[in-house]
């Protein structure tokens, strides 16, 4: 359904959703926006884009799988294991940019399939995403149009808001979305035709403002990449890479993880099994216990990141594992520009 919400009523809507934990973008002691639990006071959706994508809320950087405790009595060992599946904690995330929402839908694919990740889904199922269409590209490096997306994409969202100046054009996209709106029926008005027209205009205008494009599209690019595995291109393009983890940790669709036991005490043996984000740009990502590292240099790691996103993932899911948010370009400390690299791939040999 489609509705209209006055901006000044946003606060009241959130208040009605008191059985959810509400996240919304806020500034945390710096220039950057990030999600935080909304306090009643100053929530508005006047943000640009969060540095950490919504991914961080459905697939947190640290997640406890289980707790263990081994006790010894009379030389009899007892091992107690307590699996920790996230409990009931319904969450609404306000202010999800369409690219980040699309990325969540990519994660949904990854954590389904042959193995349905119970930890992920315990959270995901209780999470409602309220998106905000971009009227202006929040970053000048946005390129969602090259990744099957758009500044008003609905994929992955439960509700899409479009900023019409003093009000939002509200479009519910799922049952969950409708539920949110229905809880505060009185706040929403039916849209007039001109509202609909205006929303469309905002969307069209926003698309025009997105200037960056990747030369080749999904399949075409994947095919081109395939032949370039051993190309010297990767050496050149990775020269300025400093092998930090920004592009990957802050990517809305990167999802590699590591599992460790965090031992709090040796006797009695007590600790937790924990999943944390991992990062293909770190040298230890592929380190074997033999000491051998099949991806020993930054060139092979940069290549891996691109191949995963634009080749392997496409082969498996028929989707590009990139939603064009532009974070990796704008936040890269040395200005490595994934669009430029992809275009070099496209141009290679021509």
């Amino acid at each position, binding site marked *: 359904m489609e509705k209209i919400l006055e901006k000044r009523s946003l606060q009241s809507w959130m208040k009605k959703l008191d059985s959810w934990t509400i996240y919304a973008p806020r500034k945390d002691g710096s220039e950057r926006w990030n999600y935080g639990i909304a306090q009643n006071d100053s929530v508005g959706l006047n943000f640009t884009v969060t540095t950490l994508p919504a991914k961080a809320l459905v697939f947190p950087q640290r997640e406890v799988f289980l707790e263990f405790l081994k006790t010894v009595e009379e030389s009899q060992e007892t091992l107690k294991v307590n699996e920790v599946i996230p409990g009931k904690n319904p969450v609404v995330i306000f202010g999800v940019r369409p690219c980040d929402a699309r990325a969540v839908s990519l994660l949904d694919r990854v954590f389904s399939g042959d193995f349905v990740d119970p930890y992920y889904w315990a959270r995901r199922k209780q999470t409602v995403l309220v998106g905000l269409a971009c009227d202006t590209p929040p970053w000048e490096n946005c390129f969602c149009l090259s990744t099957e997306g758009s500044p008003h994409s609905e994929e992955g969202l439960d509700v899409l808001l479009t900023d019409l100046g003093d009000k939002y054009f509200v479009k519910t996209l799922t049952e969950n979305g409708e539920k949110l709106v229905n809880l505060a029926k009185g706040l929403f008005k039916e849209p007039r035709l001109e509202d609909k027209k205006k929303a469309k205009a905002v969307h069209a205008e926003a698309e025009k403002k997105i200037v960056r494009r990747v030369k080749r599209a999904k399949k075409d690019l994947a095919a081109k990449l395939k032949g370039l595995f051993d190309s010297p291109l990767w050496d050149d393009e990775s020269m*300025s890479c*400093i092998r*930090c983890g*920004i592009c990957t940790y802050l990517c809305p669709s990167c999802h590699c993880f590591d599992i460790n036991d965090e031992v709090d005490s040796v006797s009695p043996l007590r600790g937790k099994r924990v999943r944390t984000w991992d990062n293909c740009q770190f040298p230890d990502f592929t380190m074997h216990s033999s000491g051998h590292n099949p991806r020993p240099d930054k060139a092979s790691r940069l290549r891996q990141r691109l191949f995963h996103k634009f080749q392997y993932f496409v082969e498996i899911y028929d989707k590009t594992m990139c939603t064009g948010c532009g974070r990796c370009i704008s936040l890269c400390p*040395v200005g490595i520009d994934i669009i430029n690299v992809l275009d070099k791939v496209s141009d290679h040999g021509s």
Partner: protein
Amino acid sequence: MAKIEDLKEEARKLLREGKIKYVIGYAAGTNGWMASPIFIKKPEDVEKLVWDPTCVHNLSRFLVDEKRRKEREKQPDKRPVGIFVKGCDSRAIVVLLQEKFIDRNDVYILGISCEKGGVVDEHKLARKLEGKKPKKIELGDKGQLVVTTANRKAEFPVEELLAERCLECRANFPVISDIMSGEKIKRTVEKPFGSVEKMERMPKEERWRFWKEQLDKCIRCYACRSVCPMCYCDECVVDSINLAVSADTTAEEKADKVKWIQRSAESSENFVYHFVRAIHLAGRCIDCGECERACPLDIPVRFLNKKLEREAKELFGYEVGFDPAQPSLVSSFRDDDPEDFIR
């Protein structure tokens, strides 16, 4: 502002004569906010080099990669690499020399004086431009910064746009170079440790809350150490990868590794990581501020290093990055080092 035409000419000549392997310099970035590091191998590409207040990077970081590359190669090309350095960057090279990480013959240093300028802080600039995109940023004749956008040209006093590190800089021209451009104008900084002193004046608990809020944000992407020319260790102690594995290392031994911190980006672990980095940079950090600039969450990590830089100076009279022959801060002592803190 210093012109780099003569440096470019020198670079071209050296490349043409094959005296250097390549030149590490700055090129215009994809957008106007920040230049990009560039590695130039051909004399005709020298034209791509730029010099303006967006040349933020400390390029000496890439000497670390160069050394690793040489170590990997069977028949390494041992010619020096040319490198553009600012004052702060040159001090990083001094420390690398001091720690014998590189040899003086490994580098041909093309120095540039920041004169009265420095590099811009992207956030400060963004605030000034209110959503507009910079096309060109220059240091004007009167020491002001001239910013050109699509439709206008604006001038700002340097203090309003320069990065904090530049405002506290005590070495605005290279202390070591083979060829240098720009004037050696010694800039007087009234309070080189002003920001640290301000923080020291905060009450203890307030300071704690500040750091807790900041370090809680850390996602341990390790951009701070990755961008740092002094963090050249093959393996950081906190990572405990331990590459020393031999054929007879048992599985138990492999599993039984020291874990100074957990991989979880939790407060307690983040503190240890940042403590270790700070203490390992004591007497080595030259305050290029790259760690803070690289941080995607704007954690002011530079303060930790700056604090210890100040203590090294005040307690032990130690200055970093001017003399490649001096012993390092923690491998030297004076008989009368203060000990009033000891019982």
